[in-house]
C-alpha cells in the first residue's frame, strides 16, 4: 500500500468511528409546527425531554392564519417534516382525506373518560382517531361594568339559567352606546364560522352542512337568515365595528370602548391585567325562543404519516395529551382550556382569574357545546363563509350573500 493510500484509509476508519460515536450520542430530533408562542410550549417540551432524554423536540411557531397553508405546502408532496403539527379540529377530515395525518387509533383506549367527548369526536373520522386532543374551547360574554352602570343597565347574571338573549344584548348594547360606549357589542372572532355557528344553530338554521350529506351545503334557510340579519344589523346600526380585523377586536374591549364582548376565556388574563378595566363574565347569549348553543373545539396534535420518527412522534403527542404529568404541563403553557378533563380542575383552580368561570365553562362544555361540522370540505366551507360573513358585516344583503355563498360552496365542493 502506498503511504498516501495508507494515510487515507486510516483517516477513513477514524472518520467512520467518529461518525459512529456521533450517531450513538445523537438524539432523535422531532420537529413540531404550531400556532402557539414558543413560551407556551416550553413546559411540556421540557417535561417530555426530561422523561425521554434521547428525544429532542424543536418547536416552530407560525401565524394562526398561515398554519393550514404551511402544513399543506410542507406535507402535501410526502414531506417528512414537521413530524408533529397542530391540527385545527374541524380540518382533520380534510387532512385525513389528503393523507396528511397518521392513524393514532391504537392510542384511543386511553381517551375514554379522560377527554371531553367532543374533543375526541372532533379528532376522529369514521371511528378512527387521527390526532390527540390537546385543548378545547368555549366562549363567554364579557361586560364592562362602568359602561353598563353609566347606562343604568343591570349587570348580567353568571347563572346559565339567566342567560341573555341576543336580542336583549343588542338592546343593552345600544343603551350603553347612548351613554358613551363607542361600541355596544363586539365579537371576538368577528367574521369566523367558529364564532358565528352558535347564532345560526340557536336560530334553528343548523350548522350549514346538510345532516344527510357532509358535502351538501345548507345555508339558505330561515334560521341562517335570521342569524345573519341580526349580524348584519349589528354593524349596520353601528353597535359593532366594521373594518376591524379579528386580531384587533379584544383591544376594543380591553381599552374600555366596548360594553359587551363575546370572547374566549383565553382573554381573561389580558383583561384582568388591564389597569382600570372593571369587567364581569356572563354566559354566552342565545336567540329568544331558540336552543342554547356555544362554540367549542380547538387544537389536536397530529403526526405526519411520512415522519422518519413516527414512533417517537406518537410518544410525544400521547405524553402531551394523556399522560398525567405531560397533559398538566401542556395545559400550564396553554392559554386555552385543556381537552383533558382530569387536568381541567387543576388548570382552573390554579389559574382562575374570575370567580366561577371554571364552573361556567364546565357547564357549557357538558351542556351546550357544539363542534363544527366534520366534513372533508370544511376548508372551503370556512373560507367561503368567512368571506360571506365579512360581506354581510360590510353591509351586503344577508339573503343574497347567503345564496351566493351556497352556490360558491356547491361549486367548490364539486371539485372534491
Amino acid at each position, binding site marked *: 500500500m502506498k503511504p498516501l493510500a495508507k494515510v487515507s484509509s486510516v483517516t477513513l476508519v477514524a472518520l467512520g468511528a467518529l461518525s459512529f460515536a456521533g450517531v450513538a450520542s445523537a438524539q432523535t430530533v422531532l420537529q413540531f409546527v404550531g400556532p402557539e408562542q414558543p413560551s407556551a410550549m416550553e413546559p411540556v417540551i421540557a417535561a417530555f425531554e426530561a422523561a425521554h432524554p434521547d428525544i429532542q423536540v424543536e418547536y416552530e411557531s407560525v401565524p394562526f392564519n398561515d398554519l393550514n397553508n404551511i402544513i399543506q405546502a410542507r406535507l402535501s408532496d410526502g414531506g417528512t417534516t414537521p413530524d408533529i403539527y397542530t391540527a385545527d379540529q374541524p380540518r382533520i377530515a380534510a387532512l385525513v382525506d389528503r393523507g396528511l395525518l397518521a392513524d393514532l387509533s391504537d392510542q384511543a383506549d386511553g381517551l375514554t373518560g379522560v377527554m371531553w367527548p367532543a374533543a375526541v369526536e372532533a379528532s376522529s373520522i369514521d371511528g378512527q382517531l387521527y390526532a390527540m386532543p390537546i385543548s378545547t374551547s368555549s366562549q363567554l360574554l364579557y361586560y364592562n361594568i362602568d359602561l353598563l352602570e353609566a347606562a343604568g343597565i343591570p349587570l348580567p347574571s353568571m347563572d346559565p339559567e339567566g342567560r341573555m338573549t341576543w336580542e336583549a344584548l343588542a338592546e343593552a348594547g345600544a343603551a350603553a352606546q347612548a351613554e358613551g360606549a363607542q361600541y355596544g357589542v363586539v365579537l371576538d372572532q368577528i367574521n369566523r364560522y367558529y364564532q358565528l355557528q352558535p347564532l345560526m344553530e340557536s336560530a334553528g338554521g343548523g350548522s350549514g352542512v346538510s345532516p344527510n350529506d357532509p358535502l351538501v351545503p345548507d345555508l339558505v334557510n330561515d334560521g341562517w337568515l335570521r342569524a345573519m340579519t341580526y349580524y348584519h344589523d349589528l354593524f349596520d346600526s353601528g353597535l359593532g365595528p366594521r*373594518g376591524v380585523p379579528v386580531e384587533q377586536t379584544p383591544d376594543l374591549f380591553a381599552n374600555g370602548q366596548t360594553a359587551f364582548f363575546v370572547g374566549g376565556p383565553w382573554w381573561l388574563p389580558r383583561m384582568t391585567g388591564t389597569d382600570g378595566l372593571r369587567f364581569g363574565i356572563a354566559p354566552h347569549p342565545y336567540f329568544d325562543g331558540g336552543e342554547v348553543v356555544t362554540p367549542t373545539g380547538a387544537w389536536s396534535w397530529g403526526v405526519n404519516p411520512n415522519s422518519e420518527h413516527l414512533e417517537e412522534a406518537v410518544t410525544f403527542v400521547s405524553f402531551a395529551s394523556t399522560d398525567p404529568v405531560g397533559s398538566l404541563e401542556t395545559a400550564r403553557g396553554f392559554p386555552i382550556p385543556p381537552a383533558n378533563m382530569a387536568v381541567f380542575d387543576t388548570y382552573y383552580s390554579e389559574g382562575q382569574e374570575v370567580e366561577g368561570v371554571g364552573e361556567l365553562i364546565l357547564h357549557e362544555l357538558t351542556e351546550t357545546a357544539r363542534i363544527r361540522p366534520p366534513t372533508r370540505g370544511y376548508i372551503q366551507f370556512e373560507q367561503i363563509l368567512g368571506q360571506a360573513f365579512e360581506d354581510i358585516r360590510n353591509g*351586503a344583503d344577508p339573503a343574497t350573500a347567503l345564496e351566493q355563498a351556497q352556490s360558491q360552496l356547491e*361549486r367548490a365542493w364539486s371539485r372534491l
Partner: protein
Amino acid sequence: MFGIRRFRPAGGQAVTAILFLVPALLVLVAFRLWPAALSVAGSFQHNGEWVGLDNYIFLFQSDTAVQSLIVTLIYNVIINPVQIAIAFALALLLVDKIVAPSVWRSLLLIPVGIPLAVSSVVWGIAFRPDDGAINAILMALGFPAQPWLTSPDQALLAIMILVSWVGVGYWAFFLTAGLKDIPSSLLEAARIDGATYWQALRYIVIPLMKRPLAFVLVANTVSNFLLFPPIRILTAGGPSGSTNLIMHEVFLNAFTYDDQGLASAEMVILIAVLLLVVSLQFRFLRDR
C-alpha cells in the same frame, strides 16, 4: 495574442461559449422553464388525473374566477399609468426643481424599505372607518368619513393608495437615473432656441426617456399583476370580491384548497394575459 489564437478554432469557441453559459442556462431551466412546464402540464390535471381542458372550462364558468380576472384587469388599467405618471412627475421634481433633492429621494425610498406586509397592517389600521387616521384627517378637513376597505366601491382604491405609497417612490428612483442621463447640452440648446419647459419636456425629455419608461412600466405592470400581500392581509378579496386579484385566487386554490390543477390553470391564464400586456407595452415604447 496567445488567447486569441487559442480561441480561434470555430468548434472550440462555441464549446467555450456554451461552457460559460451552462450555469446560467441550468438555473434558467431549473427555476424558470421547468416549473413553467410543470404548471402548464398541471393545469390539465385534477387530483393527478388528466382532465384535458376541464380546469379551464370550470374557471370560465365560475363567477368568482371571472370576476377575479376582471378586477385584476381594472386594477392594472388604472394603477399602472397613474403610478408611472406620478413617479415621472416626482422624478422631474427631484432632478431640478427642488432644494435638497437627496433628502427627498431618501424620504421617498423609506416606504420601499418597509416590508409590504408591515405597511399593509399599518395602512389597514389607518383605513379603519370608525377610528382610523385617514378618516380623522378627512373629518378634520370637513369631509365626511369614508368606508374605505369595508366598501365594495372603495376597497380597490384603498389598495391602490397603499401600493402607490410604496411603488411611486421606488419607480421615481429609476426614472431619476434616466433623467440624469439626458445630456444637459440638448436642453441648453433647446432653451437657447427659445423652447419652453413644456416643449423641452414634450420633444426632448420624454422621447429620450422611452427606454427607462419602458423598463419601469413593464416592471411595474408585472409587480402589479402579481400583487398579493395587501389582499391577503387586509381584504381576503372582499368586500363582495371587489379586491379579489387573481394572485389571491391562485393562492387560495393552491395552498388553502389544495386544488393544484385549478391554481395552475389560473396561473397559466395570468401569465398569458401578462405576456400579452407586456408585449403591447414594448411595442408602444419601442425606440424608433
